[in-house]
């Protein structure tokens, strides 16, 4: 999981992922184009290699063309591991609060129902 955080820690790499989210299956040329002012093709290639190593980008070959796809599964694993866990505690706290309040409320409802 370290490598996923490392891959996400760079703004260029996050931008590459954003671009692949909008349009999956881009080639290196297509991905390099928007960066051509500030960055060499080799630099983009290096970023892609790290993203691929982190399994955030998956390569699909079509003949001699290499197509890049965003693979959000590792990000999902982070969400499951680090976020859902905390959400669950909050949900538990909320549901405990809810049952405590509803428990306290029940006699009143009953009274109202009886009158």
């Amino acid at each position, binding site marked *: 999981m370290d490598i996923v955080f490392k891959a996400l820690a760079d703004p260029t790499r996050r931008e590459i992922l954003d671009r692949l989210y909008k349009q999956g299956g881009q080639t290196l040329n297509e991905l390099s184009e928007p960066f051509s002012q500030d960055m060499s093709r080799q630099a983009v290639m290096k970023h892609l290699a790290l993203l691929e190593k982190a399994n955030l980008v*998956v390569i699909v070959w079509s003949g001699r063309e290499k197509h890049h796809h965003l693979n959000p599964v590792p990000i999902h694993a982070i969400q499951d591991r680090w976020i859902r866990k905390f959400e669950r505690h909050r949900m538990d706290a909320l549901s405990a609060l809810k049952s405590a309040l509803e428990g306290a409320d029940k006699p009143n409802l009953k009274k109202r129902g009886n009158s």
Partner: protein
Amino acid sequence: MKDQDYVYVTYIKAPADKIWEALTTPAFTRLYWFDIDVSSDWKVGSPVSYMKNGKALVDGKVLEAKRPKLLSYTFREVDTEASHEPHTKVTIELEPEAGTETVRLTVVHSDFVANSKHRPSISQGWPAVLSGLKSLLETGKALEFEG
């Protein structure tokens, strides 16, 4: 014109045959696939459906089934605004990583029409399903899905 393919990959530390079973039997899928039961005999040409509380959410047909390596079927959401679109295609490949106990699981979902209405459910669904499957097989615990 066709829309882009969706490609998802996860690495799971479990035997390929067990992953196959988890993908193809309802007792497993309901644990990690949003409480959904898969239903099929997985013979080529047989129907496939994904059911929740007895109601089909997805239907399709088996195209290829080579246990425990390759599974391919057609896919269409039932009773949604995407239902009028032609069936799309799901291809699942299981490749053991040489010298490890890990299997590389690849899902390719293809044959979408341009601006397919399937897109949101597909792009949110598969990552959650695969992450849940990995967690279930590696830790024995399913993730809890709200709602």
